[in-house]
């Protein structure tokens, strides 16, 4: 199990580097979305390790807030009344 934590740490560092040096807005938005999904995966792994189902509640709430935030920021950057 300790092997999986190191893989998660390495991929999170790669995503943060992409967030820092992404040239356009969309790259940073994708990196932020992916960072939230890695957070959900961390919660799932914590629920498996500690054997409590309360981390899954946090995972569902976090995924809901992530979806609303991503869609709202994308719609706002798009601008206008485009469909």
């Amino acid at each position, binding site marked *: 199990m300790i*092997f*999986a934590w190191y*893989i*998660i740490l*390495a*991929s*999170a560092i*790669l*995503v943060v*580097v*992409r967030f820092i040096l*992404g040239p*356009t*807005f*969309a*790259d940073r*938005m*994708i*990196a932020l*979305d*992916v960072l939230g*999904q*890695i957070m*959900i*995966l961390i919660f*799932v*792994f914590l*629920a*498996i390790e500690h054997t409590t*189902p309360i981390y*899954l*509640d946090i*995972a*569902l709430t976090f*995924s*809901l807030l*992530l*979806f609303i935030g*991503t*869609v709202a920021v*994308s*719609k706002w*950057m*798009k*601008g206008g009344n*485009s469909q």
Partner: protein
Amino acid sequence: MISELLLYLSAVSMFVGAVGLFRFKDCYTRIHAATMISVGGVMLALVALAIDTVWTVYSVKAMLIVIFFMLTNPVSSHAIVNCAHRMGICPDNLFKDDLGRNVSRRCI
């Protein structure tokens, strides 16, 4: 045993997706790596948790999160790509382009 294998597979798939997110050239190809992380990483880990503990509180909540993720993840992904296309970010070295001329003028 099979659930442990699926967990390691999801971690490896997430690492491959992160490498792809770091390595690709423009944002239209990076979103494929992001889809690979969300489907092959998160949903596979949740399915592994649900296989491990069948018909308990874990598996019901995990399957609910999987269904919710399956409904909302394409919407947010499409919102990002459509926003990038409306803002006029053009994709690199396309092999074939059907869209090109009629939507964004800055792209040509």
